[in-house]
């Protein structure tokens, strides 16, 4: 039983158009997803009728937006099954969420000679903030490698963790390899040695149900725009026990309790980490996106997306000279590849002429490129509004384009 694609695609008006004179086929969902009408409408409702800064006034407008904003927070809490809304921090995206933890956790818990562990398959957002913090704090960065099949060498985690390890950061789903990492197992390993874990959930949150209590992760980060919500809004989940002890990241309004020039005290979580006016419109949009997702038959959607990935893998493997990067037994969402003798830029440009949008380049994952010794890749990534026919179109397009070289 498949989702009603006809109905679903009607929810996403942007899909119904021509690009370069061809039917628009959007296969770059790992970069950003499209928004359903329901999210657009909800945000428009507030833009047109209800706008006032949140938490700062007692007037009607302020109450409307504050209520909707905090309602969204509760929806995120529920979506992640977090214990309390205070553990849900609104940020501007996964990148900011990780920067927040790297900075503040670093300030509180990391000293000279300490160690941080990340993996070789991470997106730059889950590498660079840690590098920056390590340099500031005089700490060292260690890397868990992955094999050519895209699977993390889990045994290495045991070897790499020492009594100097302060935190481990790993992606839930790789944006290049598509690997779904066994994070429950990884978290258990780390916790055995008292090492907290941050999960980069940017590529997972759109596709799976996340239960942070069951996972027992210490931090979980994701972005609104990758899960059918607007850009500019993201989430950091953190266990209270850490967040309470971490100093603020950004300073300003809202995150304070009392300001004097001799001393300033800080607000409680989550506000301690929400300085300035947040993207409350974005948060409201994210709430609408979560609401939209909650109304879908999630197991069916998950199954369908797996099917799409399977179908595209089977078709692409039929193409001579095409190499897929990352063939872990458990994959989600993305398929990165190269075709012998054709530069990804050329492929992406020509696919665009045929109305097909894919990602090309280094995919914000230089270490992955280095691992395979390539300069760039092509990446197709799926959402539940993509169809098997679109995959067929991609396949035919690739065959056609091959002939041009």
């Amino acid at each position, binding site marked *: 039983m498949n989702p009603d694609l006809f109905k679903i695609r009607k929810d996403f008006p942007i899909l119904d158009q021509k690009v*370069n004179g061809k039917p628009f086929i959007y296969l770059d969902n790992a970069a950003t997803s499209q928004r359903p009408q329901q999210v657009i409408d909800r945000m428009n409702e507030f833009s047109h009728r209800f706008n006032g800064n949140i938490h700062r006034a007692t007037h009607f407008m302020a109450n409307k937006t504050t209520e909707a904003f905090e309602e969204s927070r509760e929806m995120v809490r529920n979506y992640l099954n977090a214990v309390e809304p205070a553990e849900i921090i609104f940020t501007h995206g996964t990148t900011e969420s990780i920067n927040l933890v790297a900075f503040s956790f670093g300030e509180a818990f990391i000293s000279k000679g300490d160690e941080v562990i990340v993996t070789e398959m991470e997106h730059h957002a889950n590498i660079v903030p840690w590098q920056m913090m390590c340099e500031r704090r005089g700490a060292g960065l260690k890397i868990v490698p992955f094999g050519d099949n895209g699977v993390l060498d889990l045994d290495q985690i045991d070897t790499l963790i020492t009594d100097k390890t302060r935190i481990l950061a790993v992606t839930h789903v790789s944006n290049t390899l598509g690997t779904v990492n066994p994070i429950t197992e990884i978290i258990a390993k780390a916790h055995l040695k008292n090492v907290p874990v941050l999960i980069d959930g940017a590529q997972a949150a759109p596709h799976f149900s996340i239960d942070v209590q069951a996972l027992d992760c210490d931090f979980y980060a994701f972005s609104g725009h990758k899960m059918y919500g607007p850009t500019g809004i993201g989430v950091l989940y953190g266990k209270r026990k850490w967040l309470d002890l971490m100093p603020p990241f950004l300073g300003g309004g809202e995150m304070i309790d009392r300001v004097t020039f001799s001393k300033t005290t800080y607000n409680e979580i989550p506000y301690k980490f929400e300085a300035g006016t947040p993207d409350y419109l974005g948060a409201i949009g994210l709430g609408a996106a979560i609401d939209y997702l909650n109304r879908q038959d999630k197991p069916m959607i998950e199954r369908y997306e797996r099917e799409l990935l399977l179908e595209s893998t089977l078709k692409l493997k039929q193409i001579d000279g095409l190499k897929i990067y990352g063939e872990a037994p458990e994959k989600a969402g993305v398929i990165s590849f190269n075709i012998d003798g*054709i*530069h*990804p*830029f*050329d492929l*992406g*440009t*020509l696919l665009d*002429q045929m109305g097909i949008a894919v990602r*090309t*380049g*280094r995919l914000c994952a230089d270490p992955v490129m280095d691992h395979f010794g390539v*300069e*760039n890749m092509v990446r197709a990534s799926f959402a539940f509004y993509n169809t098997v026919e679109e995959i067929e179109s991609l396949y035919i397009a690739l065959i056609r384009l091959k002939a*041009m*070289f």
Partner: protein
Amino acid sequence: MTIDEIQQGIIEDFSAFEDWMDKYSLLIELGNELAPIDPKYKVESNLIRGCQSRVWLHQEFADGKITFEAESDALIVKGLVALLLKIYSNRTPHEILTSEPRFIDEIGLRQHLSPTRSNGLLAMVKQMKLYALAYEKISAKGN
């Protein structure tokens, strides 16, 4: 021929094509035909690294003219590089500084000159102009 005359010729060549596939096929052909840059010039200092593709640019200045050699790892970019060399190589600094590569827009490929750090083309054009500016100043000082 002046730069403008060459540009006009390029525009005419491409306007013969209605179909995007033919347009890009010609670009790919031009890219394939472009002589590879001398390997000794494919060095870090000549590399314009883009996220989407890489471009190498080498230049020499003699008898008041700049000659360029360039290459890219992406064929479409290489084709555009070939066309840019056609208009800008073996020119005086003044000629280079006083013209714009308007042909790219006119043949409908403006997006490839986009100011992101993507394919290195815009950076290459800027670099060519910088060389022209430098040589113009050097020449002026010499007088």
